[in-house]
């Protein structure tokens, strides 16, 4: 299927214009005096630009030739290049969609009328963030990529610090800034080595770099650290939960749904330069992916904060994508084309899927926070009465993220399962077969997490009677959520369409012929599964009709929930979210724990007592923080040079300069 639209405009050019428009969409708001029109104008600009850009992207995915644009600017190192190839196009598609949805959402979530100053800032930096992310995907040389990478990091930090009075937000912002710049340092190493070896910053053609062993090793590790820190792969994930939890909801949607993918794009792009990868690299990526997936969802299952839970689940999904990438790399290394196809197809489909349902969940969380006034799951409950239209949309998102049929999450995981099974069947790499139980475990934990989330937030009765009595989300918030939910359903039922989208990228990067691709993916029964999904929905309808018929024949009564004879049930007696996940948290206490502090219980009839419990993270508390403390202790002697005398500091500089002047005498 090839989309050929002869609208006479070069798709790359229209895409670049769209990116520029999105980037500048926040400016009118700054210039206009009255709050309100600026926001609406920016939403209109972003929507039109996103639609226009998506047309261009689909053209490129459909096979239109992509032109290269040279950015001739007076910076050193020469002009920079911009171009769009199928890989960039694949990642740009969800970016533009998210741009549309989140800007529309922001219209009601952060209305200019109520918070004019904040809204202007958020609109401006959202536009900048989207444009810089798009430019990262479109850049074809290292210098431009580093510049827009920094812009991306800083604009996302500015958005993160929207609620800057909150102490938690400040801490999250500091950690985020440090983590992202650590990653950037690794990226500088990578691009410096690239320049050193090839003589320029321009990206080499795919599979063209053949360097010595050590240089390749260092470059690959640097790329993995630099891009992996942005993607949130364990153990570089420590900034993720705090950052995504404390940003405004539509910004979290952008960060979680798109920015993590930019990191994944970077890894793929960096790895694709090399002709010959070391054997262990694919296994390393696979291992990191598996570890991220399991620990991510384990962390998520123990969280009590709504948005932290969703953020930790993003770590899990990135892990799944890395599992796919690792499988593909191992397949390419060992010449197993089938494994490579399945791995890449699964990874790319999951990229698109995650960018559909994670923003949906975050936008829904924004609606929840507006209605309840809190982020603590244990205090919510019964919100589906206040949010009758948001609740089903959130349910669609939860089902999709657990990978349950008939929605789209299942399709991506299906390809990964096929990769695992097909290699488990053959003699060559049976270890890959272990991927299937790992994915199954991750899926099971995901079900725990999202049943807990959906049940504790929307179902039952409100656990805290002082909860804010909110109202249903306005239309501007419901529309993007509905769009994303509809796309999840569409992608689940129309899975062959998804495969068409990722086909060109998989063919290019797995190095296979289109014929082999069709042959191999033909083994995946997307049509039959689509048929069965339809049958499932039909059977649900039939059973429901039968049940309705039976119910209406007999008397129906309402009553309170049966409490085994207990006369005075209260909402506080319900299972809270943390109670629900306590069993699994106890079993995986190696990864995540719960620390409880009990005080006040003494004697036979204690008057009052306090119990507080907080979720702890083992990897963070027992590995990363102690190692950082160790580093701090080792460098403590340097502290003596920091005596606080400003003039002595300047004198240091002067003395060094003077010394160099004398020393350089011929």
């Amino acid at each position: 299927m090839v989309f050929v639209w002869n609208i006479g405009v070069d798709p790359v050019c229209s895409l670049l214009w769209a990116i520029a428009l999105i980037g500048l969409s926040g400016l009118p708001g700054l210039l206009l005096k009255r709050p309100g029109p600026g926001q609406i104008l920016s939403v209109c600009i972003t929507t039109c630009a996103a639609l226009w850009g998506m047309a261009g992207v689909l053209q490129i995915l459909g096979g239109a030739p992509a032109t290269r644009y040279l950015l001739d600017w007076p910076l050193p190192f020469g002009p920079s290049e911009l171009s769009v190839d199928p890989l960039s196009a694949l990642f740009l598609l969800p970016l533009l969609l998210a741009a549309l949805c989140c800007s529309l959402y922001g219209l009601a979530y952060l209305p200019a009328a109520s918070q004019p100053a904040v809204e202007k800032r958020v609109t401006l930096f959202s536009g900048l963030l989207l444009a810089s992310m798009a430019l990262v995907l479109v850049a074809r040389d290292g210098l431009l990529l580093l510049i827009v990478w920094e812009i991306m990091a800083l604009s996302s930090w500015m958005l993160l610090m929207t609620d800057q009075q909150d102490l938690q937000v400040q801490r999250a912002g500091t950690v985020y800034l440090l983590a992202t710049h650590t990653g950037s340092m690794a990226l500088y190493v990578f691009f410096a080595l690239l320049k050193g070896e090839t003589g320029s910053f321009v990206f080499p053609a795919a599979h063209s770099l053949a360097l010595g062993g050590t240089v390749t090793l260092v470059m690959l590790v640097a790329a993995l650290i630099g891009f992996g820190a942005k993607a949130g792969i364990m153990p570089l994930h420590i900034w993720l939960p705090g950052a995504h939890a404390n940003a405004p909801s539509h910004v979290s949607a952008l960060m979680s749904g798109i920015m993590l993918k930019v990191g994944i794009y970077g890894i793929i792009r960096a790895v694709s330069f090399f002709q010959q990868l070391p054997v262990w690299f694919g296994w390393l990526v696979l291992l990191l992916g598996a570890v991220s997936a399991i620990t991510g969802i384990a962390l998520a299952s123990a969280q009590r904060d709504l948005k932290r839970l969703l953020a930790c689940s993003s770590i899990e999904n990135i892990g799944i994508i890395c599992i796919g990438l690792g499988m593909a790399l191992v397949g390419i290394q060992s010449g197993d084309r089938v494994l490579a196809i399945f791995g890449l197809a699964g990874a790319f489909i999951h990229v698109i899927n995650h960018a559909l349902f994670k923003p949906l969940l975050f936008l829904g969380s924004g609606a929840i926070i507006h209605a309840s006034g809190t982020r603590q799951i244990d205090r919510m409950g019964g919100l589906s009465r206040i949010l009758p239209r948001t609740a089903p949309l959130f349910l669609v998102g939860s089902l999709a993220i657990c990978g349950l049929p008939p929605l789209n999450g299942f399709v991506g995981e299906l390809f990964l399962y096929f990769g695992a099974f097909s290699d488990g069947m053959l003699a060559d790499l049976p270890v890959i077969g272990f991927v299937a139980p790992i994915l199954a475990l991750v899926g099971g934990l995901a079900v725990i997490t999202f049943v807990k989330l959906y049940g504790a937030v929307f179902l039952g009765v409100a656990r805290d009677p002082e909860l804010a009595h909110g109202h249903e989300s306005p239309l501007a918030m419901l529309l993007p959520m509905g769009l994303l939910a509809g796309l999840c359903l569409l992608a689940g039922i129309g899975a062959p369409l998804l495969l068409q989208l990722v086909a060109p990228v998989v063919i290019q990067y797995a190095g296979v012929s289109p014929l082999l691709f069709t042959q191999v993916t033909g083994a995946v029964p997307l049509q039959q599964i689509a048929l069965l999904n339809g049958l499932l929905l039909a059977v649900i309808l039939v059973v429901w009709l039968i049940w309705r018929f039976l119910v209406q024949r007999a008397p129906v009564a309402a009553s309170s929930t049966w409490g085994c004879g207990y006369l005075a049930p209260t909402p506080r007696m319900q299972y809270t979210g943390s109670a629900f996940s306590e069993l699994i948290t106890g079993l995986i206490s190696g990864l995540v724990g719960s620390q409880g502090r009990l005080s006040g219980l003494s004697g036979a009839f204690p008057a009052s007592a306090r119990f507080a419990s907080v979720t702890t993270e083992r990897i963070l508390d027992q590995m990363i923080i102690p190692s950082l403390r160790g580093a701090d202790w080792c460098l403590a002697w340097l502290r003596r040079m920091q005596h606080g005398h400003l003039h002595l500091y300047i004198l240091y500089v002067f003395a060094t300069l003077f010394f160099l002047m004398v020393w350089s005498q011929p």
Partner: protein
Amino acid sequence: MMPSTLFHILLLLAMPPLLLGVINKTKAAFAGRVGAPYLQPYYDLAKLFRKGSVFSSTTTWVFRAGPVVTLAATLIAALLVPLGNHPAIISFNGDMILFAYLFGLARFFTTSAALDTGSPFEGMGAAREVTFACLVEPTLFFILITLARMSKSLSLTPMLIYPSPAVWVSAGASMLLLVGALFVVLLAENCRIPFDDPNTHLELTMIHEVMVLDHSGPAFGLILYGAALKLFVLGAVFVNLALPFKSGNLLVDWVAFVAAMLFLAVLIGVVESVMARLRMVRIPQLLVAATILSAFAMLLIVR
């Protein structure tokens, strides 16, 4: 072909409650009682479908949708399983993944419906159900991978019809491990002893029973039937694996299958009468042990 398929569907729809009846009769026999008639579950279902419903005021549409979606998912999963030597009604490459995930869908809705009631009992049952099911998933997939490797196919029908006496002779150890692990999966997924006691309704012992505490009337009938169907489906998988007897004759195969299913029901009844329910802390250990067993079986085959 057509009458065989018709019989397949009929058996699928009609036999499950009979299994429950046989189990109960077995347990009664062990206890020295006469016990309820074999067809009692059918009478129970008929009675429940006639009864009125009581809905709690805390519940929403999710509570009403729970039993419906659960039964629908189990029905679709039932279409994917071969009965005896007769292939499944729908069979394609990779249907075993859909099979496992359909049960996941059913579980999601059952547990959400349980949380909808706002009662601590249902919450407790839901928490236990999701946790133990999560531990069962890797075991199931290890079993599936081992079977896929042995039968060199990715569809449930060839995988389950594959084990023949020759296979048992050549790979007997791993088959035994698989069968053992699958039996544990069967008992865990259907909430039978030693994981859960389907007879009592005390909160300390319940997983499945307490989750459906608040359902009444036709909805409870749907749940009961769905549970029986799940037992039948997973039992069919077990029987296919455990009994390699395959004659060419269609009639003999069907008779053998029905007899094997009834024997399985008796076996479950025996296990229920002989063992007590495990302490709650032992259940994860048993499930992890089953995972290790199935992983070991996979390693034996892979080697």
